[in-house]
């Protein structure tokens, strides 16, 4: 993930949290090696900025970048 300023990181954290909140609270998430968690636990990890939170933010950031650059649409076209 590109180096972000503190302000950019806070914005990204807020954006990813908002995106995760659209999931049903009954969504289970298998992430990392520590076992599955629920939506609200994932939100807590994101807000705490711990390893699970940071990894999830990095993954969502990569997706958001792919929308911006169009990479995701190229990938869809490539595999269609």
């Amino acid at each position, binding site marked *: 993930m590109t180096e972000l300023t503190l302000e950019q990181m806070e914005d990204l954290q807020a954006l990813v949290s908002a995106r995760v909140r659209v999931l049903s609270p009954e*969504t*289970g*998430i298998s992430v990392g*090696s520590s076992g599955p968690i629920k939506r609200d636990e994932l939100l807590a990890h994101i807000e705490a900025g711990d390893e699970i939170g940071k990894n999830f933010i990095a993954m969502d950031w990569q*997706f958001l970048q792919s929308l911006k650059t169009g990479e995701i649409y190229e990938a869809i076209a490539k595999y*269609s």
Partner: protein
Amino acid sequence: MKQLPNIPKSILITRPQGDNALKYLELWSQKIIDVAQEKGATILDLIGKRANREEFEKIIRKKNPELIILNGHGNYNFLTGQNKEILVEAGKNHEILSNSIVYAISCRSAKILGKSVASTGDGAYIGYLEDFVFYYDESKVYRPLEDKKAGLFLEPSNQVAISLLKNHSAAEASESSKRYFMRNIKKLLTTDNSSVENSQFISVLY
């Protein structure tokens, strides 16, 4: 390119139990087992307590399975079985996998363990470089195979093993799975009854 024989002699699958993620992997793997049985392969099923290091090493040495499917939690340099016991670890016993085609349904193991395995034999290792993330519906944990949310992730993942069992090479199986993931993304982008959750699903699928 490494690929399975038309009728594989035996396939080994680990299915540790202990949390909901493992339960989903265990039950969704049954689809792989069904295809392997149709092909006439002997299934060496290390389920639950049998997914321990001693039995894992013993059965590989004795049966030399052509395909090994590893379900479980993991990290860059190792993969675990029941009670998170390390079954295989780079630099310790990774060479045990070196002559088989391996598919690891686990976080991160392709990065170090996969490279170690690939560099020591004539087999192949397919796995994930970073976290293998999937969503599931907590209300479906007693009927995981009916969980459409989880199916978006686990069907394309299963495609690796199913494609290998249909005599495709490791590289072709990996591409086939990526195509399946992309097909699901496209489906979510174009479906009429689009839910706000879809954007999050796509992010994880991508």
